[in-house]
């Protein structure tokens, strides 16, 4: 909180009254549940749903000895790398060309940004329909081309499907930020380079891409957060984590173990691990990203 106001109003009670609604919601729906998750993560419940027992860090030890949980970590890592990597690459390519185009730039922009408005679960349904092994049109093309396509059976195909849906939805967001970043690069730099004989590829590699790096880094963090947390709807609607565990990312596993498996302690311990991840990502975002990104 750097800047502060000089002209202020005085009241003993008004500021508290103004903060009250936000604070109530925050305490009741954020802090109480988060505290509860912390407490539950150190307890186990007996098989009959009766007494709770304090077990210290046992739940966490079990978690990290659980091959399924470690597998879910691996799936999440692979999924995020693919979503962030593909998403950033595709949107950068589109943004670079959109930045070049003079006529119709606005139309292309409009036609590229609307997938942001589509709910993740709906995005999943659209792609699932295309890739459905019995009636999907793309699946039909793949089968005709000799590909043994059935994402309900093959884990890597299921992962590919959710990655495509996730990237499709996120490209619009990345595109907008890359385009804004590209448009803020001083034209004089590029003109000077062009006069010195640097072609488009060389200019991109030596001027545009380095100057774009704050935007790229910012988008990288945002995309990782997106892949970790906002893709729950895609996973649930498209594959429900399957086949086997092939698309069971961490967020989906918390939900499954908690709601379907009713493993309170284990699910709470997973929540705490996830919280740690969010906190780390948020700190990175605020400490290293905020001040370096310019619009």
């Amino acid at each position, binding site marked *: 909180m750097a800047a502060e106001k000089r*002209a202020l109003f005085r009241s003993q009670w008004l500021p508290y009254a103004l903060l009250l609604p936000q604070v109530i919601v925050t305490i*009741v729906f954020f802090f109480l*549940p988060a505290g509860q998750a912390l407490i*539950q993560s150190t307890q186990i419940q007996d098989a009959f749903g009766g007494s709770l027992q304090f077990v210290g860090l046992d739940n966490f030890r079990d978690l990290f000895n659980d091959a399924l949980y470690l597998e879910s970590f691996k799936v999440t890592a692979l999924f995020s790398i693919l979503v962030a990597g593909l998403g950033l690459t595709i949107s950068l*390519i589109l943004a670079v060309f959109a930045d070049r185009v003079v006529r119709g730039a606005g139309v292309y922009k409009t036609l590229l940004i609307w997938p942001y408005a589509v709910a993740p679960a*709906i995005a999943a*349904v659209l792609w699932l329909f295309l890739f459905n092994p019995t009636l999907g049109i793309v699946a039909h093309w793949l089968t005709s081309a000799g590909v043994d396509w059935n994402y309900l059976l093959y884990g890597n195909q299921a992962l590919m499907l959710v990655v495509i849906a996730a990237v499709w939805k996120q490209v619009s967001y990345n595109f907008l930020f890359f385009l804004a970043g590209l448009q803020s690069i001083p034209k004089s730099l590029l003109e000077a380079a062009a006069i010195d004989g640097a072609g488009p590829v060389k200019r991109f590699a030596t001027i545009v891409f380095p100057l774009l790096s704050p935007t790229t880094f910012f988008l990288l963090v945002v995309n990782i957060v997106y892949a970790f947390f906002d893709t729950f*709807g895609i996973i649930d609607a498209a594959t429900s984590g399957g086949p086997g565990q092939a698309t069971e990312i961490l967020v989906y596993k918390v939900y499954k173990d908690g709601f379907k498996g009713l493993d309170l302690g284990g699910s709470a311990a997973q929540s705490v691990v996830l919280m740690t991840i969010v906190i780390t990502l948020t700190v990175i975002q605020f400490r290293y990203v905020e001040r370096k990104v310019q619009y």
Partner: protein
Amino acid sequence: MIENRPLLTWISYIVLTIGVAIVAFPVYVTLVASTRTAQEVLQAPMPLTPGTHMLENYAAVLAHGAGESGAGVGRMMVNSLISALVIAIGKIAISLLSAFAIVYFRFPFRRFFFWMIFVTLMLPVEVRILPTYKVVADLGMLDTYAGLTIPLIASATATFLFRQFFLTIPDELAEAARIDGAGPMRFFWDVVLPLSRPNIAALFVILFIYGWNQYLWPLLVTTQEDMYTTVIGIKRMISGGDAATDWNLVMATAMLAMLPPALVVLLMQRWFVKGLVDAEK
């Protein structure tokens, strides 16, 4: 443009057009499927030109959903609309008030409250699913609009955004208001609120989409069909397996689920872009 390279310009148009086509393709197929009969959709490959059953498909899902599920998508759209509006307006309202308190007053624990709101950024629903569900269940808010919306209306992002903006309002305005004898709430209504209009509009677009597209939370707190939001309704429609699914009706529902947020983005594009950029600062 730095230099004239006709070939590169052509390549640009080609790449962009291919990009737009790929982005639009799934929605086009969805639109086509929503205008055909269930049998036509089931033949592989499905025809890629629009059919003639658009009106009856949409009328059918709006009235009674897909198959025998019963709850109409019309009802679900109303649920989605109510949730999206309450979430967007609620977030904006409580964030405006909190930011006003934090910027224009000095009081004990000010910083404490500020950080308290900040920390909610680090606690998305996904990481505290079970306990939050339990709180809502204990409060008797399952299957209610209050349960669908209130747990989601705390907003660190909106509070920061308004705080940031209030700090740029010249101090002279507040001084003038005080000299003229206006109290803090009068100043809030007559000066701060009108000045915040562009920020409110931008944030509204983003938050409306956020509210409309909610998935995990409505999935947990709604068990009765007449409380489903559209997005949840679709998920329930396809969970019966391929044979039991009327894909033409599911696709009509998907079109309906996409339409309101997509319209908001397209019609309020300027505010949408501003909202996205502001919200991430």
